[in-house]
């Protein structure tokens, strides 16, 4: 149902290496893209700015982490620190008078450089040890940010982001911010989709799965690990900069604390390692569900005429959302992306799968 393989014949290699080989997948992607384009006209600006925009930017960031953790298999607990480097570099560059287009690239490149330092740790240690090393680097970055007034303005200060301007246009409207986030998320998504069908993606998976087998095929795991960290850090840096420029408007060290690092990792893991649609779903779950549950609980208690005190009300969403993460990972350790894939695979052969049983 919906997804059909019958009648889909790839007669040449170009057609067989398309991103979406199944027409239903392609149509779905086009539909979502068009919805994204039309969203400012369909959704009230409150939803657009407090839900859609952060969702898109965090998805871009999560895809970057997915590149290094899902594809290259390197556990990374200092991702928020890398985002902070990009955010602060870009904002300082913009304040200095650099046009925003270049400021964003400067932010990305600065993140790449710092992020590649993380990679040098990755070349020496693996697994839990790498997690701890990157975590330590997160703390170092936190300390540097809060203790160097030149970067952050001091421990309790925040840095005002100058007005965002791209291609000679000042961007100040909600719609404008949304389209910037949307454009960035689309770019990152296209990159990740291409990663699935190119030599780079294959080499990263090879390094993740069996490094000795990768070596005998000529894959230099040293080089590809650094490349994965550098590319993912670039995405992190630009995402961090855009997050401040279009959402927070002020940069403060606590926006990129260790809790945020863990949250992004949770997005990627709940969404599914190595899954692109999973990152979208994972971010939606972690970012949007607490608010949603809050609304449901508050609305429900009001309509039932129950009195719930404020403290309980604040805890219920957290409990529900924690439970949801546990349940999802128990049902499908590969996350929401895999759950979607299961449904898709089921529909692909429905109703003929009944014949096999």
């Amino acid at each position, binding site marked *: 149902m919906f997804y059909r393989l019958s009648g889909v014949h790839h007669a040449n290699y170009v057609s067989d*290496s398309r991103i979406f080989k199944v027409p239903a997948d392609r149509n779905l992607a086009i539909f979502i893209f068009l919805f994204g384009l039309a969203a400012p006209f369909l959704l009230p600006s409150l939803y657009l700015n407090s839900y859609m925009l952060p969702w898109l930017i965090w998805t871009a960031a999560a895809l970057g982490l997915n590149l290094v953790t899902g594809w290259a298999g390197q556990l990374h607990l200092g991702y928020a620190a890398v985002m902070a480097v990009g955010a602060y570099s870009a904002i300082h560059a913009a304040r200095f008078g650099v046009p925003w287009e270049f400021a964003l690239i400067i932010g990305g490149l600065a993140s790449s450089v710092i992020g590649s330092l993380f990679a040098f740790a990755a070349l020496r240690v693996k697994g839990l040890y790498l997690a701890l090393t990157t975590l330590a680097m997160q703390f170092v970055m936190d300390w540097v940010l809060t203790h160097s007034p030149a970067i952050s303005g001091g421990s309790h200060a925040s840095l005002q982001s100058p007005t965002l301007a791209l291609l000679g246009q000042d961007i100040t409207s909600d719609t404008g911010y949304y389209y910037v986030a949307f454009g960035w998320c689309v770019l990152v998504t296209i990159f990740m989709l291409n990663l699935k069908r190119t030599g780079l993606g*294959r*080499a990263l998976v090879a390094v993740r*799965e069996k490094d000795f*087998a990768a070596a*005998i*095929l000529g894959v230099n795991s040293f080089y590809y690990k650094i490349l994965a960290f550098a590319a993912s850090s670039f995405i992190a840096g630009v995402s961090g900069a855009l997050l401040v420029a279009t959402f927070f408007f002020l940069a403060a060290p606590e926006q990129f604390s260790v809790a945020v690092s863990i949250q992004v990792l949770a997005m990627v893991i709940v969404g599914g390692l190595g899954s692109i649609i999973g990152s979208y779903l994972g971010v939606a779950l972690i970012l949007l569900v607490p608010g949603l549950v809050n609304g449901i609980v508050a609305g429900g208690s009001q309509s039932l005429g129950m009195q719930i005190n404020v403290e309980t009300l604040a805890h219920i969403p957290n409990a529900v959302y924690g439970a949801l993460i546990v349940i999802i990972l128990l049902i499908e350790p590969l996350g929401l992306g895999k759950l979607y894939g299961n449904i898709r695979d089921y529909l692909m052969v429905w109703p003929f799968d009944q014949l096999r049983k």
Partner: protein
Amino acid sequence: MTNRQTETGTSDGAILECRGIERRFGGIVAVTGVDMVIRPQEIFGLVGPNGSGKTTLTNAITGFYPPNVGSIRLAGKDITGTAPHKVAKLGVARTFQNLALFNGMSVLDNILLGRHIHMNPGVFRTAFYWWAAKNEEIENRKIVEEVIEFLQLESIRNELVDGLPIGLKKRVELARALVAEPQMLILDEPMAGMNQEEKGYMSRFILDARAERGVSVLLIEHHMDVIIGICDRMLALNYGEMIASGIPKEVVKDPRVIEAYVGGSHG
């Protein structure tokens, strides 16, 4: 060791030349004093009981465990101690005794990875796929498809490697090694666990690979019938030392080889 002299004498134009290889792990001497010369387009057998140092010798050649003593030359170029990924770029491909396929990937992607040394993947090429990577991917796909056809893997092209039977996995691994278009192909027990028919297929594939692609093959095997059937020359190891080398039919009659394989005089 009657053939030893002729063997060491013909190192000119050899594709692979190992001299006095010794490799120790702590106090254990895994391989010592091994000389091996493989000529172009030769199928060279390497036999020996378990633990005799066959795999250690391959690991020395491919750079995983560089030899403590001795030198290795590939087509005249010294590759002693070169890192594995560089050895691969110089034209050595190998398969592993216990398989080293990427289980989470499709057969096609596994074989495409064999083309890695002929490709130039990078971040920008991935980002600008349509302009920078598409042609390269398609060109390499064509070469991969030729090998898929050669090894008759068409029907499982898009399947995950994980669920395949062992015989097919071995064939996929051979395909992955062949698409790299190596000068030197090292096959570490490609027929372990195969029945007579599968062994026949595999032997035919190895012979065809040489005939059509001109590779030289170093074949590690326990099946003596295969060694005698398809190898031009062979070397037998025991306890890390060479015990016999030369034409397979003669080597297998060597009393030391018989003793190493079958055991001492059981009367």
